[in-house]
C-alpha cells in the first residue's frame, strides 16, 4: 500500500496523517482516522503537507563563503572550515559563541545540537528560536505544579464542562484543537473566550468577552478576586493540595474591583458570574497560545492560579493548557535547548544532573547558565561574535543588522531560507521523513516520524552530521541510528526514561512522564500521584493597561492575520496554503488596518482608502479595512506583510517582546 502513517509536522497539535509514497516520492497526504488527537481531521496546512515535502527549494550541498560568494564543498571541507573559524572563540565561548536551536528540529537533532554546543563548543548560550512565550508557561507550570508541560490532555477536551480560552485565535493557530473545543461546545461544554478582537473561536464560544487591548491580566486578576471574594473557591482542594494561597490572595487583593470596567471594559457582575461558573463546573480547562504570540509570565501565572483556586489542576478532565504553535516547541525545551536547562527540564545548575551528563558525554560541563541570544543581540555591549543556527523558521530575520555584523555564522537547515545569506558556512540536513525522529506535541505526546523517502540530493541526517563535527574535536559519538540517540536521551531524562521507539509507535505516541512509575505515560497531571503540593505562582500586583492619549487616541493591536504563519519560511514552499496566505495581499497589497465603522466615519475614510498610521516611533501607510471585529478606539493590523513589519512594526520590538499583547497607541491620519 502507498499510504504510510506519520505525524503532521506543522503546528504543535501533532495530528496523525498518512503520506502517499509512490516510487520513493511523496505524492499526497491523508488524515488518520484513528489518531487520538486528530481523529480524521487535518487543517489547511496539514492537508498540504505533501506540497512542502515535494519542494525543490532545498539546500542541496554544504557551502562555504569565500570572498562573499558561496561555494559548494564536501561535508568534510565545510566541517574543517567551521572548526578552523570557530577555534578562536573557544577560549571565551561563554561570551562569544551562541547557538540558536529550532522548534522544528526533532528531539534527536535538538539533543545533539545542544550536546554540540555544550560539549564541543563550550557554550551554554543556547536559545530556542522565537519562542520565549512558551518558556514563560513552562516556568509557571514547572515551578508551580512540578509539571513543565500542559497539565491536561487534548483527548479530554470533549469531556470537560467548562473551557476558558485566553487570547489569540486557536481555530487559526491550532485548528484541530479549535475544532475539538468547538465540538465540545456543540455537545454542551460552556466555552468562554476573552480577546480584544472578534475571532472565529470567539464566534464559536458561548460567551465572548471583548476586553480592552492589553487588559487580559487585569481581567484574570478580577476573576481571581471574584472567586475569593464570593467564596467560590474550592476550599478543600486549596487547603489540601496547594501552598502559597495567602501570598496570592494578598497580591490579588490589591486589585480594585471598582476599576474593572474602566480597565477591561467588562463589568464586575459579568466577571463574578464567569468566576462562579468556572468554579462550580465539574471540570474545566484553560487554553492559551504560547510561542511568539504567547502571554507574558505574569498573565500565565494568573491563569494557573485561577485554575488552582477553582480546583481544576491535577483533576480529571481539567488542565492549564499552553498551546504550542510549532511541531516540536515542547520537545525543544524537553531536550534542554535553553541556557539553563538539560533534558527533561533538569537544571544545569543541579550538580547531580550535570554529573550524569558529564559521565555520559565524557566532558566537563560549565554549570553557569548561558545567555539568551536575543538579549545578547539587543545588548550593545555584548561580545557575541559567533552564531550557530539550526533551521530558522521565520521568513523575516529579526536583528538582521546585528547578525550581519557577527564575525562568523554557521547555518544548519533543510530548506532554502533567507537566513542563509548571513551565514559563512551552510550545512544541509535531511528533513522530516528523510530521517527518523521523535516530536513532542503540545500535550507532551512524543510521536515517532519514520523515514519514508531517501534524503534530497543525499544530504546528511543530523545523527550522522553532528557526530562528524564532534569527531573533528576528537570526541567519539557512536550512533548507528536516530534510535541510538533516543536511547541516550531516555537514559538521561527521567520523564522520557520509559520510552522506546517500539512503544511509541504502537500507541500513537506516549505522553511524558513515561517512566517506571508511569510505564504507559501520563495523559494528564494527576494530583493524587504527584507527591507534592501545587504552589501558587508569584504574581506582580501591577495592573497597568496601555492607554490611549490625545495624540495617539487609538490602540493598535498587531497580531496574526486571517491565517497564521504568514511570513513563515516553510509555508512559502507550498502552493495552496501559500496562495491562501497571500489571498489577502491581492486585495490589500500593501497591508491594511482594521477599524470599525464608527471610527471610519469619524476619520472620514472609506474602505480601501490609504491612511497614515502614526505612533511615537514611526509611521506607515496602509489601506483601511472596515470591520465589525474591532471596537471603537481599537485598530488591528496583521503582522504578515513584509513592508509593514520591516518599516514599522519591527521598530516596536520592545512591545513585541512583551508577547501577545503588542499594543501600540497610534493616530490615523487621512492622506
Amino acid at each position, binding site marked *: *500500500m*502507498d*499510504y504510510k*502513517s506519520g505525524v503532521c509536522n506543522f503546528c504543535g497539535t501533532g495530528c*496523525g496523517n*498518512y503520506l*502517499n509514497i509512490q516510487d520513493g516520492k511523496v*505524492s*499526497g*497526504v*491523508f*488524515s*488518520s*482516522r*484513528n*489518531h487520538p488527537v486528530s*481523529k*480524521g*481531521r*487535518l*487543517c*489547511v496546512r*496539514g*492537508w498540504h503537507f*505533501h*506540497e512542502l515535502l*515535494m519542494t*525543490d527549494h*532545498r539546500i*542541496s550541498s554544504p557551502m562555504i563563503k569565500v570572498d562573499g560568494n558561496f561555494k559548494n564543498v564536501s561535508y568534510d571541507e565545510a566541517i574543517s572550515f567551521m572548526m578552523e573559524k570557530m577555534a578562536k572563540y573557544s577560549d571565551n565561548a561563554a561570551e562569544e559563541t551562541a547557538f540558536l536551536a529550532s522548534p522544528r528540529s526533532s528531539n534527536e537533532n535538538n539533543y545533539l545540537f545542544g550536546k554540540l554546543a555544550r560539549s564541543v563548543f563550550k557554550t551554554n548560550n543556547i536559545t530556542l528560536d522565537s519562542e520565549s512565550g512558551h518558556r514563560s508557561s513552562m516556568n509557571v507550570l514547572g515551578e508551580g505544579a512540578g509539571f513543565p508541560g500542559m497539565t491536561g490532555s487534548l483527548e479530554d477536551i470533549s469531556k470537560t464542562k467548562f473551557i476558558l480560552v485566553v487570547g489569540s485565535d486557536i*481555530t487559526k493557530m491550532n*485548528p*484541530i484543537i*479549535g*475544532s475539538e473545543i*468547538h*465540538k465540545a461546545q*456543540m455537545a454542551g461544554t460552556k466555552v468562554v473566550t476573552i480577546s480584544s478582537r472578534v475571532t*472565529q473561536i470567539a*464566534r*464559536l464560544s458561548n460567551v465572548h468577552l471583548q476586553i480592552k487591548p492589553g487588559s487580559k491580566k487585569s481581567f484574570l486578576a478580577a476573576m481571581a478576586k471574584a472567586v475569593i471574594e464570593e467564596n467560590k473557591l474550592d476550599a478543600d482542594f486549596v487547603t489540601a493540595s496547594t501552598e502559597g494561597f495567602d501570598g496570592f490572595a494578598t497580591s490579588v487583593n490589591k486589585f480594585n474591583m471598582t476599576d474593572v470596567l474602566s480597565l477591561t471594559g467588562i463589568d464586575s457582575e459579568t466577571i463574578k458570574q464567569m468566576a462562579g461558573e468556572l468554579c462550580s463546573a465539574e471540570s474545566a480547562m484553560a487554553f492559551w497560545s504560547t510561542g511568539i504570540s504567547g502571554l507574558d509570565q505574569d498573565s500565565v501565572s494568573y491563569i494557573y492560579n485561577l485554575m488552582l483556586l477553582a480546583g481544576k489542576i491535577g483533576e480529571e478532565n481539567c488542565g492549564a493548557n499552553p498551546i504550542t504553535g510549532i511541531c516540536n516547541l515542547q520537545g525543544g525545551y524537553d531536550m534542554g535547548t535553553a541556557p539553563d536547562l538539560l533534558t527533561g527540564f533538569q537544571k544545569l545548575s543541579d550538580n547531580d544532573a550535570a554529573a550524569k551528563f558529564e559521565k555520559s558525554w565524557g566532558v566537563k560541563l560549565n554549570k553557569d547558565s548561558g545567555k539568551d541570544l536575543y538579549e545578547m543581540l539587543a545588548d550593545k555591549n555584548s561580545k557575541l561574535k559567533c552564531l550557530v543556527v539550526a533551521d530558522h523558521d521565520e521568513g523575516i530575520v529579526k536583528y538582521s543588522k546585528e547578525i550581519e555584523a557577527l564575525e562568523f555564522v554557521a547555518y544548519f537547515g533543510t530548506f532554502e531560507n533567507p537566513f542563509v545569506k548571513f551565514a559563512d558556512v551552510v550545512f544541509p540536513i535531511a528533513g522530516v521523513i528523510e530521517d527518523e525522529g521523535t516530536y513532542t506535541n503540545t500535550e507532551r505526546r512524543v510521536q515517532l516520524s519514520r523515514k519514508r523517502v531517501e534524503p*534530497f*540530493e543525499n544530504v546528511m541526517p543530523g545523527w550522522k552530521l553532528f557526530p562528524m563535527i564532534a569527531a573533528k574535536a576528537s570526541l567519539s559519538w557512536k550512533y548507528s541510528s536516530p534510535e541510538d540517540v533516543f536511547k541516550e536521551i531516555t537514559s538521561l531524562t527521567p520523564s522520557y526514561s520509559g520510552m522506546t521507539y517500539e512503544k511509541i*509507535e504502537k500507541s500513537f505516541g506516549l505522553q511524558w512522564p513515561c517512566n517506571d512509575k508511569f510505564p504507559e505515560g501520563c495523559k494528564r497531571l494527576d494530583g493524587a500521584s504527584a507527591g507534592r503540593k501545587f504552589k501558587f505562582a508569584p504574581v506582580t500586583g501591577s495592573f497597568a493597561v496601555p492607554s490611549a492619549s490625545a495624540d495617539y487616541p487609538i490602540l493598535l493591536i498587531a497580531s496574526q492575520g*486571517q491565517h497564521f504563519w504568514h511570513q513563515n519560511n516553510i509555508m512559502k514552499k507550498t*502552493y*495552496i496554503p501559500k*496562495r*491562501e496566505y*497571500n*489571498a*489577502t495581499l*491581492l*486585495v490589500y*497589497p500593501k497591508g491594511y488596518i482594521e477599524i470599525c465603522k464608527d471610527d471610519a466615519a469619524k476619520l472620514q475614510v472609506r474602505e480601501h482608502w490609504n491612511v497614515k498610521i502614526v505612533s511615537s516611533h514611526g509611521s506607515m501607510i496602509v489601506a483601511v479595512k472596515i470591520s465589525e471585529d474591532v471596537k471603537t478606539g481599537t485598530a488591528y493590523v496583521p503582522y504578515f506583510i513584509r513592508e509593514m513589519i520591516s518599516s514599522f512594526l519591527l521598530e516596536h520590538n520592545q512591545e513585541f517582546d512583551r508577547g501577545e499583547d503588542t499594543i501600540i497607541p497610534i493616530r490615523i491620519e487621512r492622506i
Partner: protein
Amino acid sequence: MYLIEKNNVMKLAEELAKSYFLYGPVVDKETKQVFFNKVESASEISLTAEIPSIPPKTVVFPQIERILEYKYEKDSKKVQMNADFDTSSKALFGIRPCDLTGILVLDRFFMGLEFVDDVYLEHRKRMFIVSNTCTVPFKQCFCVCTDSGPAAEEGYDLNLTDLGDMYLVETGSDKGREFAEKMGLQKAGAEHTLEKKNAVDKSISLFEKLATDNKAWISRVMNRVTTGFIKDEVWEHIGKQCFECGACTFVCPTCSCFNIEDHNKFSGSTDRLRTWDSCSFEGYTKMAGDHNPRHPVEDRRNKRFFCKLSYSQSKKYLRPGCVGCGRCQWVCPGDIGLPNVVTYIRREITE
C-alpha cells in the same frame, strides 16, 4: 449472472491482476484505517472492509498528478515537452456503490461536457470495475437518501453481492461478460436474483439501526437550494463553523475542482502539476490586482452546497452531487458535513 464460491472470489482479482494494475480496499495493519489503493497482490484486498477513508476517485483524479514535464533552456531557446498521462490499465476491485456513483459523476463532468479532459480520459479508458454490494450498511452511510446504494445499478463490469456461501456475479458490460465466461463461472438462476433482492432489502432495513451517524433528506432541500430561498442566518451559521481546511472537497467522491501549478525541479526541468483544490478556499477565485468576487466564507460554503444540491448543477451530473458516503462529516473540523448542512436547511424549512 453468475455465481462464485466465497473462498474463490479473490481468484477474480488474481486473474485481473494479470492484465491490470489492481486497486481495492486495503485495511492498514497498524491503525485499521481502510484505504482504496493499488495493491501488490489480491490477498491485500478486503471485501468486507468498511467504506474506505479515502475515496477511490484518487485513482482517476489523484491528489497530485503530473500532466506535463518541460525543460526550457533559456540560452539556446530550446523547449522539450513531454505530455505525461497515466495510460496504465487499472482494475478497481470491490468498489462500493456510493464510490462507483462518484466515478460516474466524474465521468459525466470530465468527459461529457464541451471538452473532454484528456488526463481523466486516459485514466478511465482501460479500466475494469468490480463493484461490491453493501449487504450491511456502515455507521456513516446514507446512500439510501441519495439513490446511490446499497447496490450498484450501472457503471460496473462486474458486480458482486454476498449471498452467504456464494457471491452473485452480475455483468454490466461485454468486457465483464467475456471475463466471467473466461473464468468459467457457474450460471446463476432466478432464485439468486431473488436472494440478492432480499439481501439488498435487508440492508436497507438495517440503515435505521446501524447507519446512525448521518441522514440527509436531500430531495427535500434541493428546491430550496436551487431557488436560493434560504435565510442568510443559516449560511452564517454554516460559514462560521468552516475552518477552511478543504477536507470536505478532498474526501468527496464527486468533487473535481483542481489547481494547476508549475513546479520547478532541482534538475532544471519543470513539472506541471494538477492538484486538488477547494472552492471553499479564499484564494480560490481571487485574482491578482483585483477584488474577490466571493468574499465571505459563508458565500464560499454556499457555492459548494449549491454545486452539490441544486437542480441546475445536478443537470451536469444527471443526479445530485452527493452520493451518501458520509466522509465529509467525519473529516470536518466544524460540524458542517453535507448531511448536517441538509439538516440545518431542513430545520429552517420546518420552522
